[in-house]
């Protein structure tokens, strides 16, 4: 009965196995993470000191744009889909994803989308240079010719995400083991279920907005061209109607991962499970009615400003509930601090700091000073790097022994954590200062006034980059060998994934387990 995978390259090309596809997603996203990181290092190298020394402004803009696009669509989103692929079937006691062939397809179109997008860097006129938010008309009338390739690539990425989301929803609703009621599902499954709905709701909006751009560029329409009766602000409304839920797409699964790890290492059940579920759902709902807080300076009527300010401030409530629940889970536990726990604790602290600056940004009159400065850059990196990157790293360390059957090197894991933690704070904390002091985003050069903190940021960025190479080394070394892991791996962790042997067999739960 038990048969292993096929041999050679076709194993990966034709596979419908959720574990294989999960691994491919994770490797792909790590490759994109390194590439996006190289783009970031080009930016930080240019900003090491005032003056233009390494790249021209034109190329600098391509770097900021590609860094954002690659990190959002290439690194963070596929990494979460990879973790979902690996873990959701095992967590709900299913043999595989509900739609395995579509699963293969949704992965394999991604590398092509990114090859196309990255190839624009080598085209005449350069790649996308209008920021990852690609505001019209800079991205339409004034865009380089390669913008058409960018639009097509975004369409493919969107299709991939939508297919992945459908698959996850179908799996969760149809493939749960007997007794696995919705309110017994691990939080990672819950947060992904909600994320999948967000994806299905907003990826078509993104597809819509890039299609409108395509029409403006090639077919003579004027959706966003004021001279033709169109409206550049319409672009921003449509984009952020996608864009704001998008940032929650990048954080909700992270909540799930951390909610799995903290109880394990606190040796105490997650505090307030049901309130965590409701808080996630509330955040998802609120994410649809706050989009214009990215646009406080476009000249909305004051009623609009007030509505979006109040709605945005409200997000602090369910997010606060989550943080309080994690802290209370730790309280009176019996804690140990293995690498996944270190990353998770750093997640809670740094994500909360990012949340604080988010609360400040929500205050519309103050946002007139913060908007489009490095303060915003600091804010979203504080929520995204500890939020998405740290949680993914925590998840990788936490489940890696389950995936490959070997324990990773704990000393190296902890060293990597401290390097990444220090690197992150040294890079992004000074950005709060330069932003408040008046340095705007997306510029290749600046006054000497901002020089010290920029130099510190650049040093931190290279340190952070080095830490990621260490992660790569540790993961490869663990796959190749190491102390054998037990089925449970950790000290009495909760969840069905720990009931199967380590490494998890190629096919798990061919007969569904009974959940009490």
């Amino acid at each position, binding site marked *: 009965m038990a048969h292993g995978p096929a041999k050679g390259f076709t194993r990966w090309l034709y596979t419908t196995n959720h574990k294989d596809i999960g691994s491919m997603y994770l490797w792909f996203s790590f490759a994109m993470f390194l590439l996006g990181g190289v783009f970031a290092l080009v930016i930080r190298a240019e900003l090491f000191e*005032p*003056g*233009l020394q390494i790249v021209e*402004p034109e190329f600098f803009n391509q770097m900021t744009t590609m860094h954002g696009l690659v990190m959002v669509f290439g690194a963070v989103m596929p990494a979460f889909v990879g973790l979902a692929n690996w873990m959701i079937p095992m967590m709900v006691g299913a043999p595989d994803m509900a739609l395995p062939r579509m699963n293969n397809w949704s992965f394999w179109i991604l590398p092509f989308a990114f090859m196309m997008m990255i190839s624009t860097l080598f085209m005449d006129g350069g790649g996308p*240079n*209008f920021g990852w938010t690609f*505001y019209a*008309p*800079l991205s339409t*009338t*004034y865009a380089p010719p390669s913008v058409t390739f960018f639009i097509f690539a975004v369409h493919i990425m969107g299709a991939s995400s939508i297919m992945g989301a459908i698959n996850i929803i179908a799996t969760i609703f149809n493939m749960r083991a007997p007794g696995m009621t919705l309110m017994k599902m691990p939080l990672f499954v819950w947060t992904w279920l909600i994320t999948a709905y967000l994806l299905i709701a907003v990826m078509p909006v993104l597809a819509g907005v890039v299609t409108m751009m395509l029409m403006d560029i090639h077919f003579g329409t004027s959706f966003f061209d*004021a001279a033709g009766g*169109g*409206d*550049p602000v319409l672009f921003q409304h449509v984009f952020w109607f996608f864009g704001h839920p998008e940032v929650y797409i990048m954080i909700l699964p992270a909540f799930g991962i951390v909610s799995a790890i903290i109880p394990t290492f606190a040796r*105490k*059940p997650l505090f*307030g*499970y049901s309130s965590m579920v409701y808080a996630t759902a509330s955040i998802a709902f609120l994410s649809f009615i706050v989009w214009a807080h990215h646009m406080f*300076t476009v*000249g909305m009527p*004051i009623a609009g*400003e007030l509505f979006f300010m109040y709605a945005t401030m409200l997000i602090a*409530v369910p997010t606060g509930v989550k943080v*309080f629940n994690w802290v*209370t*889970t*730790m*309280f*009176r*536990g*019996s*804690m*140990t*601090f293995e690498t996944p726990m270190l990353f998770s*604790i750093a997640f*809670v*602290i740094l994500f*909360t700091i990012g949340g*604080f600056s988010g*609360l*400040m940004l929500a205050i519309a*009159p*103050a946002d*007139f*000073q913060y908007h*489009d400065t490095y303060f915003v850059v600091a804010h979203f990196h504080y929520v995204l790097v500890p939020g998405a990157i740290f949680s993914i790293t925590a998840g990788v360390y936490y489940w890696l022994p389950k995936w490959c059957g070997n324990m990773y090197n704990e000393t190296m894991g902890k060293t990597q954590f401290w390097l990444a933690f*220090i690197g992150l704070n040294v890079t992004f904390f000074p950005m709060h200062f330069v932003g*408040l*002091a*008046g340095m*705007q*985003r*997306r510029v290749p*050069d600046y*006054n*000497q*006034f901002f020089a*010290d903190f920029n130099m*510190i940021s650049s040093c931190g960025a290279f340190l952070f980059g080095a830490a990621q190479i260490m992660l790569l080394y540790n993961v490869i070394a663990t796959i190749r060998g190491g102390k054998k892991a037990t089925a449970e791996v950790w000290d009495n962790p909760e969840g069905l994934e720990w009931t199967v042997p380590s490494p998890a067999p190629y096919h798990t739960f061919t007969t569904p387990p009974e959940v009490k």
Partner: protein
Amino acid sequence: MVNVISRLTAWLSSSTLCLSSLLLSSYALAQEAGRSTINMPVGVTPISTEVYGLHMQMFWWCVGIGVVVFGVMFYSMIVHRKSNGAKAANFHDSTTLEILWTVIPLVILVVMAFPATSTLIKLYDTSESDVDVVITGYQWYWKYEYLGEEVSFFSRLSTPQEQIRNQATKGEHYLREVDEPLVIPVNKKIRFLVTSNDVIHAWWVPDLAVKRDAIPGYVNESWAKVNKPGVYRGVCAELCGKDHGFMPIVVKAVPEEEYTVWLADRREQAEKIKALTGKTFTLDELMVQGKQVYTKACVACHGVNGEGGVGKAIAGSPIATGDIAAHLDIVVNGSKVNLAMAAYKDTLSEVDTAAVLTYQRNAFGNNTGDVVQPIDVLNFKQGK
């Protein structure tokens, strides 16, 4: 293991020391310049002062909440660790707690919302202004137009390329200086009407707490009442293409009498330029003037000797040696196929356009002997 940790701790503390000394040195620098390197300026308008107050109030709320939350967290991380022999409790639910930590933040948020709303309402009140300035964003400079005063001019970065390219020492106001600052009177309500000619820009001066997007097809309003004479510097805040980082803003706030004199002076200059349009110039006069205009407006793309670069070569160019009307068309209206060749109908006066055309048609070995007069340019612009 212990070894690694102790080594790490040592390294950490030494790097913290390094960092803090750096912080101190930049703080000292900030003191000299009179600006904070780590915080928002209080600014010089009633709104900017209120915004600063809001910002600090929010900051201290966050610090307070942070101290409580992280306090509890670090307490349990230190006390409730397995290596201390801590035994795990088993509680995992408390409706009372959940309600409590939903309601308390909600109350704090309501407390925060009141002052924010009141400031926002004031910020939006652009009525009863004393001076109206139309601000238009261009790739990559600003145009200021005093409504009803017939005074308008462009304001561009004045930092020399050599400083940007690290071939000369950077001045104090590197990238934050312009050829012609916006001049406004103090203690008067200035209304800014912000729009754009091409892509979206954003006009931001931190000391005025004014940031408004300049959007083609829109006119956004904002206002400031500066209470202290001085020079206030800002930047374009919205990514607008290649030279987004190189289109600063300088606002000079002066006492009212000084402003009136300045305005009269500008008006007189404008009249003079207008009068010159009717005058007939000699070839030599136009060549001298044309060279100056060329150095300012054309040289970046077309080269010092008209050899081209980003733009096409002027030397021997079929346009610069051919039909005058076609030459006028591309300079006045810009290129239809290549957006980098902008339209100069607003940015160059009739005299400057005539001079630069004459220069291009006679310099770099073009030697056509053609003389273009300002009146020809005016006629062309009016479609005659």
